[in-house]
């Protein structure tokens, strides 16, 4: 409260996120940082550097690899782990499918987004993670707007929005029973624009996908989809080459591109400032139903 006026909004948000990361380090035995290769989790890594250097991170970076990732994102992930010297753990959705624990979706738009939760919960059990730090933001989606910064999940990884703990001041309660875990969202209070302005201010490197480039695409439900070996094309699909960039980076099967000439962070910020659609407007997985995200979170999704 006091002296707040001395810090800019980005400095305040940064300080809050560092504080939350340090609370995770202090309150949990075996935390993990869920790293997807997207801009939000890249910011989390940058914030962790600020929270713990010159020491090491008190957690590994954990990537749940759906097998449908962009090559650029995977390379960026490996380079970042090498550059920071921090431990990277990768677990594969394909393994869950091969073991019969997860079943691949059928139909024209199959996505591995939902079954990612199976692999995540198995990974949490394998390493006995008691806290998983994620880059979700409350401005992304209405069910997320309801979620606490320390979000307790039961032994099935399930979120119960009606039974959330009160979260008072900045005193976070991470006490849990064996088998439960906490999802922690240090950048809950950031908006998409805050993230981009922070990336600019801190000069944070990003995968090239976020900047405009030429790519083969097809149109799916008015969205621009990257052509890849993971989507099935039929005669009705017309492949075109367009100048695009990605506003959010997830699986190649559910992340749509936007047509854009934005080549620099400044261009991107200008583009977002005038954009009339949300970031998740380009995510097919959220368009499935009015409560798609809420339902996924109840199922253990982060």
């Amino acid at each position: 409260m006091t002296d707040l006026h001395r810090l800019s909004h980005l400095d305040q948000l940064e300080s809050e996120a560092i504080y939350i990361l340090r609370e995770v380090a202090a309150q949990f035995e075996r935390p993990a940082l869920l790293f997807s290769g997207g801009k939000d989790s890249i910011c989390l890594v940058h914030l962790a550097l600020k929270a713990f250097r010159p020491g090491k991170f008190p957690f590994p970076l954990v990537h749940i690899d759906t097998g449908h990732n962009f090559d650029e994102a995977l390379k960026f992930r490996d380079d970042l782990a090498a550059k920071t010297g921090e431990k990277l753990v990768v677990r594969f959705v394909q393994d869950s499918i091969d073991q019969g624990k997860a079943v691949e979706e059928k139909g024209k738009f199959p996505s591995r987004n939902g079954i990612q939760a199976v692999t995540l919960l198995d990974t949490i059990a394998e390493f006995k993670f008691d806290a998983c730090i994620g880059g979700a933001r409350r401005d992304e989606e209405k069910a997320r707007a309801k979620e606490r910064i320390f979000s307790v999940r039961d032994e099935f990884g399930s979120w119960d929005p009606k039974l959330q703990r009160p979260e008072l001041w900045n005193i976070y309660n991470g006490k849990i029973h064996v088998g439960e875990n906490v999802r922690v969202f240090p950048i809950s209070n950031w908006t998409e624009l805050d993230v981009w302005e922070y990336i600019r201010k801190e000069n944070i490197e990003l995968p090239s996908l976020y900047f405009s480039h030429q790519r083969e695409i097809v149109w799916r439900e008015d969205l621009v989809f990257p052509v890849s070996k993971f989507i099935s094309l039929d005669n009705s699909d017309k492949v075109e080459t367009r100048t695009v960039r990605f506003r959010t980076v997830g699986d190649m099967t559910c992340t749509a591109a936007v047509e854009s000439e934005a080549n620099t962070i400044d261009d991107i910020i200008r583009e977002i400032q005038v954009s009339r659609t949300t970031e998740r407007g380009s995510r097919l997985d959220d368009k499935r139903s009015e409560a798609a995200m809420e339902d996924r979170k109840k199922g253990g999704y982060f």
Partner: protein
Amino acid sequence: MDILRFITAGSVDDGKSTLIGRLLYDSKSIFQDQLEAIEKAGQVNGQINLALLTDGLKAEREQGITIDVAYKYFSTPKRKFIIADAPGHVQYTRNMVTGASNSDLAIILIDARKGVIEQTYRHSYIVSLLRIPYVVVCVNKMDLVDFSEEVFLNIQKQYLEFAKDLDLKSIHFLPISALNGDNVVDLSTSMPWWKEKSLLGFLEDIELHTEEESPAPRFPVQNVIRPQTAEYHDYRGYAGQIRSGHFTVGDSITVLPSGLKSKIKAIDTYAGSLKTAYAPMSVTIRLEDEIDVSRGDMLVISGEEPTTSQDLEAHICWMDQKVMTPGSKYLLRQTTNSVKASIRTLEYRVETSTHEKKEQANLGLNEIGKVTIRTAKPVAYDPYSKIRGTGSFILVDEGTNQTVAAGMLL
């Protein structure tokens, strides 16, 4: 640009969610795809239902009420805003306290047709107890009382009369219609008698100098950073967030509760070392002497020490189904400190709508009372009225791990 965090409080159907929807809509903070989604969901009085922007849970949309706090964000060129949209129902008081605990300002909504009602008293009491520095009373649904200035002034008078007993530092009044957008973002042509700013204009311009200008410096230690590498062989830094005031290299420091003394040798950040750091910066402080400091300790400037005691007095808001009975033991968490504590006495319960103090044996869900607490180890704290960051605490039930109370030290 800075941040203003505010909460909206009001009874069910006073139009909180509609007001927030209106603020977002008229300030052009709603995206096309969000609008299309709520347009699909149907209309109210021939207009899109703006409340659907904030009621994000299935159960909320089904019942048309707000169950839990939703956080919403928007910004103007002047300021970034974080809105805690809190439920109005009495049974969700704990969720309102959750939203209020981090707010700089409270918007209290009153239905112009109903005037000041019991919920207005209750919410104002909580706002006063949590010492939210600014209150804006929005008299809503002015369209339903013919935009009458007299109705507005009567409600203003009624509210001020009741607020005399409360500790509210700054109260402002605004006549609005959230449904139509009168005086929300733009000034209304229907109320030419209103010569002041719109709600947004007010939120943009309010100055955030809330507590005393030079509060005592407080630095609760979160972690000890000890890399133990060749390069940083002797590095021992205390990581934390400055809760109040500022710290400068060379300052004489007392560590609480031990009372050990040293001087600040360096203030480190990832971007480099600082000479002075202010609240609420997260930094790493190194001291000149190798003394025992660990998580839960607090660094303060020598000569400006807070109270250190095992006997505490506090107001608490009870948040658990299981009632609080004096004699019960809990884990008390204040700043980064955790200590076992026992509630010794319940002095009284406050009737939040009348401020009456009532004697009773225990405290139930959503009730507020004054207690005395004994802790297993000394706690360093300031009264909540002086420094919120060191005067607030929570109680955790060690059986269920639930947060069962919010506390404000006296």
